[in-house]
């Protein structure tokens, strides 16, 4: 039995973050990012770093906060809520876990032309906000996102982490995002199986935040948009559609907190799949090295948050009507981001399969 899904500290932190992002005109920043002008977005990331966001998953001994996964979830939910552009689960969660977990095998590999201290330098770059990192983890994350913005590109597969070289970025359905193939480079060390769990959890939180934002936008819109002489929100069909979104978001959220607590437990005990990223047998229900309660809870969170966010997106588009089907309206930023993120960090089907494997 777990306690409350969010600690009071996490919710205070989320409140501070919300206030900052609310005043930062993130949609304008995102549109500049989409047009190829990354500078305002990178400045925003440095402000996030100033609040500690990029150091949450970096261990204290490497200059980070070594925070509870609950705080990471709270931060990622806020970044999703505000549609912050950039590789959020990668930079905030998966890459710090990979770099910090290079551990015993790191020494030899890290010497491959890059110097033994490099992972530490990267970690401090993440903490300071000077470095944005992305990665590919085939087969769950076959492409690296936002390679143009990233000062570090990694590839984690077959139990090892390598430096990656990005191919030509391709446009995403989310105009503020790109995806690229990544070629293998020098081996850095062993890949922690926790990385994919942290990435998937961060992505789930980002999706939930985006879904909440769309519910809020939908509610505001139907309160003011008038047809047939009434606000469209007075029509029962609209009410019931948005009530379903509220229910889905409400019941997805506790799963995030539970997964964060399970991961916290797995971090402490090293229970998770021996700590090494597995070969990724999707059909067999193995995603990453994760088995047991933590893997089960991360998958439950990703499925529920993904489904709730997508329901929120469909409902938002429908209740906005034609204006929602334009690029000009800001809801498009959230609608397309949800569609892009939904199958990343393990598809819904892969997570459902893994969950059943974990509860057998």
């Amino acid at each position, binding site marked *: *039995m*777990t*306690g*409350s*899904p969010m600690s009071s500290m996490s919710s205070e932190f989320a409140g501070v973050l919300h206030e900052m992002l609310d005043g930062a005109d993130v949609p304008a920043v995102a549109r500049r990012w989409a047009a190829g002008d990354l500078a305002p977005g990178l400045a925003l990331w440095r402000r996030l770093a100033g609040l500690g966001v990029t150091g949450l998953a970096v261990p204290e001994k490497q200059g980070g906060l070594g925070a509870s996964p609950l705080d990471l979830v709270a931060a990622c939910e806020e970044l999703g809520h505000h549609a912050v552009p950039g590789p959020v689960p990668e930079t905030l969660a998966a890459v710090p876990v990979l770099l910090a977990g290079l551990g015993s095998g790191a020494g030899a590999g890290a010497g491959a032309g890059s110097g033994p201290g490099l992972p530490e330098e990267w970690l401090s770059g993440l903490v300071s906000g000077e470095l944005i990192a992305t990665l590919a983890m085939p087969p769950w994350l076959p492409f690296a996102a936002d390679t143009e913005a990233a000062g570090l590109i990694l590839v984690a597969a077959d139990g090892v982490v390598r430096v990656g070289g990005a191919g030509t970025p391709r446009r995403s359905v989310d105009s503020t995002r790109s995806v690229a193939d990544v070629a293998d480079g020098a081996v850095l060390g062993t890949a922690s199986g926790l990385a994919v769990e942290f990435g998937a959890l961060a992505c789930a939180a980002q999706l939930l935040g985006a879904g909440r934002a769309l*519910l809020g936008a939908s*509610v505001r819109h*139907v*309160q003011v948009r008038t047809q047939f002489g*009434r*606000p469209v*929100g*007075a029509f*029962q069909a*609209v*009410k*019931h559609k*948005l*009530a*379903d979104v*509220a*229910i889905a978001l*409400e*019941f*997805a959220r*506790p*799963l995030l*907190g*539970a997964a964060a607590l399970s991961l916290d437990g797995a971090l402490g005990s090293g229970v998770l799949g021996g700590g090494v990223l597995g070969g990724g047998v999707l059909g067999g229900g193995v995603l990453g090295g994760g088995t047991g309660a933590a893997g089960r809870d991360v998958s*439950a969170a990703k*499925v*529920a948050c993904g489904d709730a966010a997508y329901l929120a997106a469909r409902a938002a588009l429908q209740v906005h009507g034609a204006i929602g089907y334009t690029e000009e309206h800001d809801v498009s930023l959230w609608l397309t981001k949800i569609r892009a993120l939904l199958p990343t960090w393990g598809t*819904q*089907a892969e997570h*459902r*399969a893994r*969950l*059943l494997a974990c*509860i*057998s």
Partner: protein
Amino acid sequence: MTSAFRAEVREWLGAHVPDPPLPSLDTAEGFERHRAWERELAAAGLAVVSWPARYGGREATLSEWLVFEEEYYAAGAPARVGQNGLSLLAPTLFTHGSDEQRDRLLPPMACADEVWAQAWSEPDAGSDLAALRSRAVAVSGGWLLSGTKTWSSRAAFADRAFGLFRSSSSAEAGSRHRGLTYLMFDLRAPGVTVRPIRQLGGRTGFAEIFLDEVFVPDADVIGAPGDGWRIAMSTASHERGLSLRSPGRFLAAAARLASLWRREGCDPGVRDRVADAWIGARAYQLHTQATADRLAAGGSLGAESSMGKVFWSELDLALHETALDLLGPSAEDRDGPDRRWLEDYLFALAGPIYAGTNEIQRTLIAERVLGLPR
């Protein structure tokens, strides 16, 4: 404390849960067998764990009550024949009743010497409960009740019932939500006729109640005459929320569903629905726990309980539909070894309808949680 409590509950249930299961409580024989089971539970101090000791409880916290419920369903223990009283009337008595009423009514409720039926709906007042027309006329020392109540759960075999009656006309009271009085009455009193109604599936889980000048003493009015609507609504969230459907029921059923899925060969076409049932049960457990923590910290249960009601009722139905789909042609067999899935499915079918239809709940969510215009 919680783990010791869990162990005690698990051990007692392990030694006492009837095997084979009791006959349905919606049969005359099954009802009395369930009443006897409640007496056994009460004797073990497990019937009403969250109540004060003076009424037969042990003052368990909400979290401990949730533990009890998890263990209860995991053990496959019998349905609670006293549910209406325990989850609807008791919270009302705790909040709005008098000491005399609590002392007189709660102990026999706890050991099922008195099993309660609810008497809300009428033939022309279902979702629109405030349209009710059954009357309470003041007489010396009490009231005379007349009218028809229907869809009254457990009324076919229960001892007493509670519900709302119109004690002054809407015109006199100024609103149809005023002038309603919350009353309790004896189902065997002169002037009461109970007509059992066969439900989908053939059992008499509810009944129609005809009242013809049935005398009820003043002592059986809860709260002030005319204040019944406010009293009923103040505890309506109990009916929709955690006290009616504890997460234990769904966690146990989702685990059984996963086992059934494996037994039937891990059909990939049904896999996602099996996973979603488990995720839904887990989400409901976590959400309920968070609600219990919030209530323990002094919070209150408001319109958000409508979200829970829609969620659990649809989860329950989807879970059992998935089981029937997995069973295939043998699912229809009411006498076969897997018949429990069908019986529980029939039970789940009613969930989106009672305690306020899910359509009513969605409207409440939209207006009271999201703030959409009426």
